[in-house]
Protein backbone atom coordinates (compact mmCIF):
# COMPACT_ATOMS: atom_id res chain seq x y z
CA UNK A 1 0.00 0.00 0.00
CA UNK A 2 2.80 2.34 0.95
CA UNK A 3 4.65 1.47 -2.21
CA UNK A 4 1.54 2.22 -4.24
CA UNK A 5 1.22 5.64 -2.64
CA UNK A 6 4.86 6.38 -3.34
CA UNK A 7 4.31 5.55 -6.96
CA UNK A 8 1.14 7.61 -7.15
CA UNK A 9 2.83 10.64 -5.65
CA UNK A 10 5.37 10.92 -8.43
CA UNK A 11 4.83 13.97 -10.58
CA UNK A 12 2.43 13.11 -13.39
CA UNK A 13 4.15 13.15 -16.74
CA UNK A 14 0.80 13.44 -18.52
CA UNK A 15 0.54 17.09 -17.49
CA UNK A 16 3.80 17.91 -19.27
CA UNK A 17 2.51 16.11 -22.29
CA UNK A 18 -0.72 18.11 -22.27
CA UNK A 19 1.27 21.30 -22.00
CA UNK A 20 3.41 20.23 -24.92
CA UNK A 21 0.33 19.54 -26.97
CA UNK A 22 -0.87 23.04 -26.26
CA UNK A 23 2.50 24.41 -27.37
CA UNK A 24 2.24 22.36 -30.53
CA UNK A 25 -1.17 23.86 -31.20
CA UNK A 26 0.26 27.34 -30.74
CA UNK A 27 2.89 26.43 -33.31
CA UNK A 28 0.18 25.68 -35.82
CA UNK A 29 -0.78 22.04 -35.26
CA UNK A 30 -4.56 21.93 -34.92
CA UNK A 31 -4.36 18.17 -34.46
CA UNK A 32 -2.57 18.67 -31.13
CA UNK A 33 -5.55 20.58 -29.79
CA UNK A 34 -7.94 17.99 -31.19
CA UNK A 35 -6.01 15.37 -29.19
CA UNK A 36 -6.42 17.41 -26.03
CA UNK A 37 -10.15 17.77 -26.65
CA UNK A 38 -10.39 14.04 -27.25
CA UNK A 39 -8.49 13.23 -24.07
CA UNK A 40 -10.56 15.47 -21.83
CA UNK A 41 -13.93 15.27 -23.51
CA UNK A 42 -15.38 12.59 -21.24
CA UNK A 43 -14.16 13.85 -17.84
CA UNK A 44 -14.91 17.47 -18.68
CA UNK A 45 -18.27 16.82 -20.28
CA UNK A 46 -19.22 14.42 -17.47
CA UNK A 47 -18.33 17.08 -14.93
CA UNK A 48 -20.39 19.70 -16.78
CA UNK A 49 -23.36 17.39 -17.29
CA UNK A 50 -23.46 16.55 -13.59
CA UNK A 51 -22.98 20.14 -12.51
CA UNK A 52 -25.50 21.75 -14.85
CA UNK A 53 -27.87 18.77 -15.19
CA UNK A 54 -28.80 19.85 -18.71
CA UNK A 55 -27.30 18.58 -21.94
CA UNK A 56 -27.78 21.85 -23.82
CA UNK A 57 -26.09 23.83 -21.04
CA UNK A 58 -23.28 21.28 -20.81
CA UNK A 59 -22.79 21.61 -24.59
CA UNK A 60 -22.69 25.38 -24.38
CA UNK A 61 -20.25 25.48 -21.46
CA UNK A 62 -18.07 22.71 -22.94
CA UNK A 63 -17.68 24.71 -26.13
CA UNK A 64 -16.96 27.91 -24.23
CA UNK A 65 -14.29 26.19 -22.11
CA UNK A 66 -12.42 25.13 -25.23
CA UNK A 67 -12.87 28.49 -26.92
CA UNK A 68 -11.18 30.06 -23.91
CA UNK A 69 -8.40 27.50 -24.04
CA UNK A 70 -7.91 28.33 -27.73
CA UNK A 71 -7.99 32.08 -27.15
CA UNK A 72 -5.72 32.06 -24.10
CA UNK A 73 -3.45 29.17 -25.00
CA UNK A 74 -0.48 31.53 -25.17
CA UNK A 75 -1.04 32.80 -21.67
CA UNK A 76 -0.97 29.60 -19.67
CA UNK A 77 2.03 29.71 -17.36
CA UNK A 78 1.44 26.61 -15.28
CA UNK A 79 2.03 23.10 -16.45
CA UNK A 80 -1.06 21.66 -14.81
CA UNK A 81 -3.29 21.70 -17.85
CA UNK A 82 -6.16 19.68 -16.36
CA UNK A 83 -6.29 22.00 -13.34
CA UNK A 84 -6.42 25.00 -15.66
CA UNK A 85 -9.12 23.38 -17.78
CA UNK A 86 -11.33 22.57 -14.79
CA UNK A 87 -10.76 26.03 -13.34
CA UNK A 88 -12.17 27.54 -16.52
CA UNK A 89 -15.09 25.10 -16.32
CA UNK A 90 -15.65 25.96 -12.65
CA UNK A 91 -15.81 29.68 -13.45
CA UNK A 92 -18.19 29.16 -16.34
CA UNK A 93 -20.48 26.93 -14.28
CA UNK A 94 -20.61 29.62 -11.60
CA UNK A 95 -21.46 32.21 -14.27
CA UNK A 96 -24.20 29.92 -15.49
CA UNK A 97 -25.63 29.47 -12.00
CA UNK A 98 -25.55 33.18 -11.37
CA UNK A 99 -27.56 33.75 -14.52
CA UNK A 100 -29.99 30.96 -13.69
CA UNK A 101 -30.28 31.28 -9.94
CA UNK A 102 -29.01 34.63 -8.72
CA UNK A 103 -29.79 33.78 -5.10
CA UNK A 104 -27.60 30.69 -4.97
CA UNK A 105 -24.91 30.83 -2.35
CA UNK A 106 -21.57 29.55 -3.49
CA UNK A 107 -20.09 29.60 -0.04
CA UNK A 108 -22.89 28.32 2.16
CA UNK A 109 -22.35 24.77 3.28
CA UNK A 110 -25.42 22.62 3.41
CA UNK A 111 -23.95 19.89 5.57
CA UNK A 112 -25.96 16.99 6.81
CA UNK A 113 -24.76 17.19 10.37
CA UNK A 114 -23.26 13.73 10.37
CA UNK A 115 -20.45 13.61 12.87
CA UNK A 116 -17.33 11.60 12.38
CA UNK A 117 -18.28 9.56 15.39
CA UNK A 118 -21.53 8.60 13.71
CA UNK A 119 -19.73 7.81 10.51
CA UNK A 120 -17.11 5.71 12.22
CA UNK A 121 -19.69 4.00 14.41
CA UNK A 122 -21.40 2.61 11.36
CA UNK A 123 -18.63 0.54 9.91
CA UNK A 124 -20.61 -2.44 8.75
CA UNK A 125 -19.55 -3.09 5.17
CA UNK A 126 -22.09 -2.03 2.63
CA UNK A 127 -23.30 -5.14 0.85
CA UNK A 128 -22.85 -3.72 -2.64
CA UNK A 129 -22.36 -7.19 -4.03
CA UNK A 130 -25.76 -8.26 -2.73
CA UNK A 131 -27.57 -5.43 -4.46
CA UNK A 132 -28.34 -5.24 -8.10
CA UNK A 133 -25.48 -3.38 -9.75
CA UNK A 134 -27.66 -1.20 -11.95
CA UNK A 135 -29.91 -0.25 -9.06
CA UNK A 136 -26.93 0.82 -6.98
CA UNK A 137 -25.59 2.86 -9.86
CA UNK A 138 -28.91 4.61 -10.34
CA UNK A 139 -29.16 5.27 -6.64
CA UNK A 140 -25.64 6.70 -6.45
CA UNK A 141 -26.13 8.82 -9.58
CA UNK A 142 -29.33 10.20 -8.08
CA UNK A 143 -27.64 10.92 -4.78
CA UNK A 144 -24.83 12.78 -6.55
CA UNK A 145 -27.42 15.02 -8.21
CA UNK A 146 -28.72 16.08 -4.83
CA UNK A 147 -25.39 16.93 -3.26
CA UNK A 148 -24.85 20.60 -2.40
CA UNK A 149 -23.06 22.38 -5.24
CA UNK A 150 -19.69 22.77 -3.51
CA UNK A 151 -19.57 19.14 -2.41
CA UNK A 152 -20.73 17.91 -5.79
CA UNK A 153 -18.02 19.92 -7.49
CA UNK A 154 -15.24 18.49 -5.30
CA UNK A 155 -16.64 15.00 -5.76
CA UNK A 156 -16.89 15.31 -9.55
CA UNK A 157 -13.53 16.98 -9.99
CA UNK A 158 -11.94 14.08 -8.12
CA UNK A 159 -13.88 11.28 -9.76
CA UNK A 160 -14.38 12.65 -13.26
CA UNK A 161 -11.34 14.84 -13.69
CA UNK A 162 -8.88 13.14 -11.32
CA UNK A 163 -7.91 16.61 -10.10
CA UNK A 164 -5.74 16.60 -6.93
CA UNK A 165 -7.31 18.04 -3.77
CA UNK A 166 -4.73 20.82 -3.61
CA UNK A 167 -5.75 21.96 -7.08
CA UNK A 168 -9.47 21.62 -6.28
CA UNK A 169 -8.96 23.80 -3.20
CA UNK A 170 -7.21 26.40 -5.37
CA UNK A 171 -10.00 26.31 -7.94
CA UNK A 172 -12.70 26.73 -5.28
CA UNK A 173 -10.70 29.35 -3.41
CA UNK A 174 -10.83 27.44 -0.12
CA UNK A 175 -8.33 25.73 2.16
CA UNK A 176 -7.40 22.14 1.44
CA UNK A 177 -9.07 21.15 4.70
CA UNK A 178 -12.36 22.58 3.43
CA UNK A 179 -12.01 20.73 0.13
CA UNK A 180 -11.31 17.49 2.00
CA UNK A 181 -14.24 18.09 4.35
CA UNK A 182 -16.53 18.62 1.36
CA UNK A 183 -15.41 15.32 -0.10
CA UNK A 184 -15.97 13.62 3.25
CA UNK A 185 -19.50 15.01 3.49
CA UNK A 186 -20.26 13.98 -0.08
CA UNK A 187 -19.09 10.44 0.60
CA UNK A 188 -21.00 10.33 3.87
CA UNK A 189 -24.18 11.30 2.06
CA UNK A 190 -23.69 8.70 -0.64
CA UNK A 191 -23.05 6.15 2.02
CA UNK A 192 -26.17 7.17 3.87
CA UNK A 193 -28.16 6.96 0.66
CA UNK A 194 -26.94 3.44 -0.03
CA UNK A 195 -27.61 2.44 3.53
CA UNK A 196 -31.19 3.67 3.26
CA UNK A 197 -31.50 1.84 -0.01
CA UNK A 198 -30.23 -1.33 1.60
CA UNK A 199 -32.79 -0.98 4.39
CA UNK A 200 -35.76 -0.20 2.15
CA UNK A 201 -35.00 -2.31 -0.89
CA UNK A 202 -37.10 -5.50 -1.09
CA UNK A 203 -33.99 -7.38 -2.21
CA UNK A 204 -31.75 -5.76 0.40
CA UNK A 205 -30.37 -7.71 3.33
CA UNK A 206 -32.33 -5.55 5.75
CA UNK A 207 -35.53 -7.06 4.40
CA UNK A 208 -34.07 -10.51 4.06
CA UNK A 209 -33.28 -10.55 7.74
CA UNK A 210 -36.92 -10.02 8.61
CA UNK A 211 -39.16 -13.04 9.08
Amino acid sequence: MQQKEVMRSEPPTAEVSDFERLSQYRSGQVEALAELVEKFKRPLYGFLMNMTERADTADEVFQEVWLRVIRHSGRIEERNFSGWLFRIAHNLVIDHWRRQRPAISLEKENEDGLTLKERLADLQPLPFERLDGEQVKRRVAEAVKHLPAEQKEVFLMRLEGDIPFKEIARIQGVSINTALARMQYALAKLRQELKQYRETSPSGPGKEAQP
Partner: protein
Amino acid sequence: MNCETVQRLMLLASSGELSGWQRWRLARHRSICPACRQAEQEMLRLVDTARQALPEVAPGAGLLTAIRRAAETELRRRPLAGNAPRFSPALRNTALAVALALLVVAFGWSLRLERSPSLPAVASAPAVQETDELFTTELFPESEDLAVLSAEDVFYVERFIDGTGTDTINALDLELLWLEGLAI
Protein backbone atom coordinates in the same frame (compact mmCIF):
# COMPACT_ATOMS: atom_id res chain seq x y z
CA MET B 1 -3.23 11.92 15.47
CA ASN B 2 -6.99 11.51 15.69
CA CYS B 3 -9.24 9.50 13.40
CA GLU B 4 -10.69 12.54 11.64
CA THR B 5 -7.24 13.70 10.58
CA VAL B 6 -6.49 10.18 9.42
CA GLN B 7 -9.62 10.10 7.28
CA ARG B 8 -8.44 13.23 5.48
CA LEU B 9 -5.02 11.73 5.01
CA MET B 10 -6.75 8.70 3.49
CA LEU B 11 -8.41 10.92 0.92
CA LEU B 12 -5.08 12.57 0.15
CA ALA B 13 -3.49 9.13 -0.11
CA SER B 14 -6.11 8.12 -2.66
CA SER B 15 -5.14 11.10 -4.81
CA GLY B 16 -1.39 10.56 -4.33
CA GLU B 17 -0.84 13.81 -2.48
CA LEU B 18 0.83 12.64 0.72
CA SER B 19 4.37 13.55 1.66
CA GLY B 20 6.67 10.85 3.02
CA TRP B 21 6.10 12.05 6.55
CA GLN B 22 2.32 11.98 6.14
CA ARG B 23 2.47 8.51 4.64
CA TRP B 24 4.41 7.34 7.63
CA ARG B 25 1.87 8.87 10.02
CA LEU B 26 -0.99 7.27 8.13
CA ALA B 27 0.75 3.88 8.10
CA ARG B 28 1.43 4.13 11.81
CA HIS B 29 -2.19 4.98 12.59
CA ARG B 30 -3.47 2.22 10.33
CA SER B 31 -1.36 -0.31 12.16
CA ILE B 32 -2.99 0.50 15.50
CA CYS B 33 -6.55 1.45 14.53
CA PRO B 34 -8.74 -1.29 13.04
CA ALA B 35 -11.69 1.14 12.74
CA CYS B 36 -9.72 3.41 10.42
CA ARG B 37 -8.42 0.47 8.42
CA GLN B 38 -12.00 -0.64 7.85
CA ALA B 39 -13.13 2.93 7.17
CA GLU B 40 -10.46 3.25 4.49
CA GLN B 41 -11.55 0.06 2.76
CA GLU B 42 -15.12 1.26 2.92
CA MET B 43 -14.20 4.64 1.49
CA LEU B 44 -12.26 3.10 -1.39
CA ARG B 45 -15.15 0.79 -2.23
CA LEU B 46 -17.63 3.65 -2.11
CA VAL B 47 -15.48 5.79 -4.39
CA ASP B 48 -15.09 2.87 -6.77
CA THR B 49 -18.85 2.26 -6.83
CA ALA B 50 -19.55 5.95 -7.34
CA ARG B 51 -17.02 6.15 -10.16
CA GLN B 52 -18.77 3.30 -11.92
CA ALA B 53 -22.18 4.83 -11.24
CA LEU B 54 -21.43 8.15 -12.90
CA PRO B 55 -23.02 8.09 -16.34
CA GLU B 56 -20.66 7.84 -19.29
CA VAL B 57 -21.43 10.91 -21.30
CA ALA B 58 -19.57 12.59 -24.14
CA PRO B 59 -20.16 15.62 -26.32
CA GLY B 60 -21.64 15.13 -29.77
CA ALA B 61 -19.51 15.04 -32.91
CA GLY B 62 -20.96 18.37 -34.08
CA LEU B 63 -19.67 20.10 -30.99
CA LEU B 64 -16.18 18.69 -31.45
CA THR B 65 -16.18 19.79 -35.08
CA ALA B 66 -17.19 23.32 -34.07
CA ILE B 67 -14.32 23.48 -31.57
CA ARG B 68 -11.87 22.28 -34.19
CA ARG B 69 -13.08 24.93 -36.62
CA ALA B 70 -12.68 27.60 -33.95
CA ALA B 71 -9.12 26.37 -33.29
CA GLU B 72 -8.29 26.60 -37.00
CA THR B 73 -9.78 30.08 -37.27
CA GLU B 74 -7.79 31.27 -34.26
CA LEU B 75 -4.55 29.99 -35.78
CA ARG B 76 -5.25 31.83 -39.03
CA ARG B 77 -6.11 34.99 -37.16
CA ARG B 78 -2.96 35.36 -35.08
CA PRO B 79 0.77 34.86 -35.69
CA LEU B 80 2.13 31.47 -34.77
CA ALA B 81 4.10 31.05 -31.58
CA GLY B 82 7.82 31.30 -32.21
CA ASN B 83 7.37 33.34 -35.38
CA ALA B 84 8.00 36.88 -34.28
CA PRO B 85 6.30 39.51 -36.42
CA ARG B 86 8.62 40.96 -39.02
CA PHE B 87 9.17 44.71 -39.01
CA SER B 88 10.65 46.84 -41.73
CA PRO B 89 14.27 47.99 -41.09
CA ALA B 90 13.10 51.61 -40.77
CA LEU B 91 10.54 50.75 -38.14
CA ARG B 92 13.04 48.58 -36.27
CA ASN B 93 15.62 51.40 -36.23
CA THR B 94 13.02 53.87 -34.95
CA ALA B 95 12.04 51.47 -32.14
CA LEU B 96 15.69 51.02 -31.18
CA ALA B 97 16.24 54.77 -31.08
CA VAL B 98 13.20 55.28 -28.86
CA ALA B 99 14.33 52.52 -26.53
CA LEU B 100 17.81 54.04 -26.30
CA ALA B 101 16.37 57.47 -25.51
CA LEU B 102 14.20 55.99 -22.77
CA LEU B 103 17.24 54.27 -21.27
CA VAL B 104 19.18 57.54 -21.17
CA VAL B 105 16.26 59.32 -19.49
CA ALA B 106 15.91 56.51 -16.94
CA PHE B 107 19.64 56.61 -16.18
CA GLY B 108 19.55 60.37 -15.66
CA TRP B 109 16.55 60.04 -13.38
CA SER B 110 18.26 57.43 -11.24
CA LEU B 111 21.32 59.72 -10.83
CA ARG B 112 19.04 62.52 -9.72
CA LEU B 113 17.38 60.27 -7.18
CA GLU B 114 20.74 59.24 -5.75
CA ARG B 115 21.68 62.86 -5.08
CA SER B 116 18.38 63.70 -3.35
CA PRO B 117 18.26 63.43 0.47
CA SER B 118 17.49 59.96 1.61
CA LEU B 119 13.91 59.25 2.45
CA PRO B 120 12.97 57.86 5.82
CA ALA B 121 13.08 54.13 5.76
CA VAL B 122 9.72 52.53 5.29
CA ALA B 123 9.05 49.71 7.64
CA SER B 124 8.95 46.61 5.56
CA ALA B 125 6.05 44.25 5.94
CA PRO B 126 6.83 41.23 8.03
CA ALA B 127 7.89 38.35 5.89
CA VAL B 128 5.08 35.95 5.28
CA GLN B 129 6.16 32.52 6.27
CA GLU B 130 4.96 30.06 3.74
CA THR B 131 3.75 26.90 5.34
CA ASP B 132 2.13 23.91 3.84
CA GLU B 133 -1.56 23.97 4.62
CA LEU B 134 -1.52 20.24 5.14
CA PHE B 135 0.61 20.70 8.20
CA THR B 136 -1.42 23.37 9.93
CA THR B 137 -2.81 22.72 13.34
CA GLU B 138 -6.26 22.46 11.79
CA LEU B 139 -5.30 19.19 10.22
CA PHE B 140 -2.92 18.07 12.94
CA PRO B 141 -4.39 19.43 16.12
CA GLU B 142 -2.94 16.82 18.43
CA SER B 143 0.01 17.54 20.63
CA GLU B 144 0.81 13.85 20.73
CA ASP B 145 3.01 14.47 17.71
CA LEU B 146 5.71 15.55 20.09
CA ALA B 147 5.63 12.31 22.01
CA VAL B 148 8.87 10.40 22.11
CA LEU B 149 8.99 7.91 19.30
CA SER B 150 9.40 4.23 19.92
CA ALA B 151 12.14 2.17 18.32
CA GLU B 152 9.55 1.01 15.78
CA ASP B 153 8.67 4.61 14.94
CA VAL B 154 12.34 5.40 14.45
CA PHE B 155 12.57 2.50 12.05
CA TYR B 156 9.64 3.86 10.04
CA VAL B 157 10.95 7.40 10.05
CA GLU B 158 14.34 6.28 8.80
CA ARG B 159 12.74 4.06 6.20
CA PHE B 160 10.54 6.81 4.92
CA ILE B 161 13.21 9.44 4.90
CA ASP B 162 16.16 7.38 3.69
CA GLY B 163 14.26 4.96 1.53
CA THR B 164 12.35 7.51 -0.50
CA GLY B 165 15.12 9.95 -1.24
CA THR B 166 12.87 12.30 -3.19
CA ASP B 167 10.26 12.72 -0.47
CA THR B 168 9.95 16.20 0.84
CA ILE B 169 9.98 16.84 4.53
CA ASN B 170 8.85 20.34 5.33
CA ALA B 171 10.14 22.63 8.03
CA LEU B 172 7.58 21.53 10.57
CA ASP B 173 8.45 17.89 10.01
CA LEU B 174 12.10 18.63 10.60
CA GLU B 175 11.21 20.59 13.70
CA LEU B 176 9.23 17.65 15.03
CA LEU B 177 12.09 15.29 14.27
CA TRP B 178 14.51 17.62 16.01
CA LEU B 179 12.26 17.82 19.07
CA GLU B 180 12.10 14.07 19.06
CA GLY B 181 15.87 13.79 18.96
CA LEU B 182 15.89 12.42 15.43
CA ALA B 183 17.23 15.41 13.58
CA ILE B 184 19.50 14.40 10.77
